[in-house]
């Protein structure tokens, strides 16, 4: 028997305390001893990464605002396998829409033995699914099917300007302008970690303190004109067929600014399908020959030699030499392309007849090693132009201090042998002649447009002034006469053109190949204020000699391109222009 209220009260209190003790013990265990584990578990439940879908990349436009590369919205379709109630029915409905066989899809939608204990199993079913198909799948209202929005690059003109536009793979590598400007083009997805709702959406508190909106990429406006590019590519394709050439390139630029208006290469590829080329092991096709392939330029390099000689002040247009058809220097015998002697020749004659002996005379007897290579460097050879495209190479220029230098290089380099240049370097060098001695940096991006509307114009950049305006004017006149005298197929009716053709031998095993040549022509016009500079190169044209020479293949191609571009750009013929002036 309990003896009084006090005792009973004590007993009740003791009981209550006894009941409370395990609760307190549990609280201590949960709140103190196992606190970190429970915190981690709780965070796993409520704290997750959240964010809005990936932003689009910057769009690429041509100089007139025509789309070249855009973004096509797509979806990655996946399945939360645990949530799928009827595997067979789901597979039957989905299979035709995701291009998978019924068996394949069923396998993907079925949990493996190891996965049955898991609460969350997700599998990818299809990637880059177009919105129309995604809508069809969504309309089926299948449980457990998920959609992750994404983008693929869309090339509005297919193969057009493929080498210039290029691509970027998932590793951030690629070809063309896109990998070069990747830091601008690629948007930035914003991914936060915080407390989320059961629907994986952030809590309001999260939104108050964190940015969720992704940063879209910056648009690029290129210098190329898609109409000019399309026309040039069309003409290149026709010429490749006509002259049965293996490959070829045409570059069109404005010598006053260095803007590239067109850059056409054959063979080309479809940038949107780059993984297929890579899978077929033909990834070499991604290289842009105009900037990535060094070649011996041959006679077109004579423009540089004459420019150097004139600018040095050691010769003028009255200079002449006795052409005996051969010149021995550094252990090699330099001969003219025709193996003939041309007698007394001046600068114009040496250029018009494209005389190797005349050029070797200039480099070895007039200029000398130091001066000649100073000019070669000043014209930008042996260094990238900085055009703004991935994969540009420097070419190869041997200078007297090199270990593998040979004395004969001074003679052979003067007419474009024993030196490797890119077509773009040559274009850049000749732009100095067309632009009063000032060499502009060739470039392909005209403007950047940021998502907030800020425009950043890329101003023309002067690379240097390798020759004086007077030298440029004199050489331009010489080159115009060369075209008028010796290269009629390059003449554009109604316009005065300056230019030089070249037929370069191709180095092979133990010397030069017997038959194969690189036919080229570089010219600018209309004079006296050139607005277009065009470089044409055809590799290994397979037509009978002498039809494969540059003056018979590359020159008429130049003529066709120049004639049409003058019209497209609204440049009136000389007589009409003179009338208006």
């Amino acid at each position, binding site marked *: 028997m309990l003896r009084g209220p006090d005792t009973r009260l004590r007993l009740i209190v003791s009981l209550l305390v006894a009941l409370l003790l395990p609760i307190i013990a549990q609280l201590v265990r949960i709140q103190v001893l196992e606190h970190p584990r429970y915190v981690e578990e709780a965070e796993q439940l409520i704290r997750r990464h959240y964010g809005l879908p990936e932003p689009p990349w910057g769009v690429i436009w041509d100089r007139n605002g025509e789309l070249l590369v855009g*973004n096509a919205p797509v979806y990655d379709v996946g399945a939360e396998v645990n949530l799928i109630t009827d595997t067979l029915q789901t597979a039957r409905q989905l299979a035709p829409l995701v291009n998978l066989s019924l068996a394949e899809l069923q396998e993907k939608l079925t949990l493996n033995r190891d996965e049955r204990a898991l609460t969350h199993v997700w599998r990818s079913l299809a990637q880059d699914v177009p919105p129309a198909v995604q809508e069809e799948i969504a309309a089926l209202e299948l449980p457990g099917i998920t959609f992750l929005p994404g983008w693929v690059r869309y090339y509005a003109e297919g193969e057009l300007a493929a080498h210039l536009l290029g691509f970027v793979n998932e590793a951030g590598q690629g070809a063309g302008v896109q990998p070069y400007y990747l830091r601008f083009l690629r948007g930035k997805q914003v991914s936060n970690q915080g407390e989320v709702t059961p629907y994986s959406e952030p809590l309001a508190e999260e*939104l108050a303190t964190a940015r969720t909106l992704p940063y879209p990429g910056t648009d690029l406006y290129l210098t190329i004109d898609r109409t000019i590019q399309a026309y040039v590519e069309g003409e290149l394709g026709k010429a490749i067929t006509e002259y049965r050439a293996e490959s070829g390139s045409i570059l069109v630029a404005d010598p006053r600014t260095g803007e590239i208006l067109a850059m056409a290469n054959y063979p080309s590829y479809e940038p949107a399908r780059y993984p297929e080329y890579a899978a077929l092991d033909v990834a070499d096709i991604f290289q842009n020959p105009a900037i990535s392939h060094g070649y011996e330029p041959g006679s077109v390099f004579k423009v540089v030699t004459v420019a150097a000689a004139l600018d040095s002040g050691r010769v003028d247009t009255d200079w002449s030499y006795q052409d005996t058809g051969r010149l021995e220097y550094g252990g090699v015998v330099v001969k003219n392309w025709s193996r003939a002697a041309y007698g007394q020749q001046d600068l114009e004659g040496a250029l018009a007849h494209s005389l190797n002996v005349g050029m070797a005379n200039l480099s070895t007897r007039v200029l000398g090693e130091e001066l000649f290579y100073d000019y070669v460097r000043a014209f930008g050879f042996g260094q990238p132009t900085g055009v703004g495209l991935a994969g540009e190479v420097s070419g190869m220029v041997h200078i007297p201090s090199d270990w593998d230098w040979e004395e004969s290089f001074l003679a052979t380099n003067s007419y474009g042998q024993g030196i490797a240049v890119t077509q773009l370097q040559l274009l850049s060098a000749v732009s100095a002649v067309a632009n009063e001695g000032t060499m502009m940096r060739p470039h392909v991006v005209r403007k950047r447009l940021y998502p907030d509307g800020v425009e950043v114009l890329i101003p023309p950049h002067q690379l240097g002034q390798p020759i004086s305006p007077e030298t440029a004017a004199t050489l331009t006149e010489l080159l115009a006469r060369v075209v008028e005298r010796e290269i009629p197929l390059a003449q554009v009716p109604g316009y005065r053109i300056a230019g030089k053709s070249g037929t370069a031998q191709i180095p092979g095993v133990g010397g030069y190949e017997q038959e194969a040549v690189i036919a080229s022509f570089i010219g600018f016009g209309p004079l006296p204020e050139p607005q277009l500079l065009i470089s044409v190169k055809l590799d290994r044209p397979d037509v009978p000699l002498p039809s494969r020479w540059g003056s018979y293949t590359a020159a008429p191609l130049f003529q066709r391109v120049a004639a049409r571009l003058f019209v497209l750009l609204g440049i009136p013929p000389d007589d009409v222009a003179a009338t208006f002036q």
Partner: protein
Amino acid sequence: MSVLWQQRTHGVQRQKEQQTRAAARFFLLIFVALLVLAGAYATLAAANVKLGEEVWDQEKELVSGERENQFLIIEIARLSSIPELQRRATELGYVPADAVDYIWVTEQ
């Protein structure tokens, strides 16, 4: 009990009563103030949640609009691409110009 003592006692009682009432009023006031504050906080929190949801919805809408915009951009580009323009021009009977002549138009 004398009258004086009773008055004193009542005075003490009255004072005590007064103090108790004042304390009660004070705590009531604090309680009401806390209630008002709690109400205000709850309202603010609710408004914040609603606003957060709206912001999130609008951001999602913005992203969705951007996708639609990009789709329209490429659709316009597809319809105005050179191959498409050539196809339509050919259908309409246009042919490439072989020669282009400049005509000098005198000003009137």
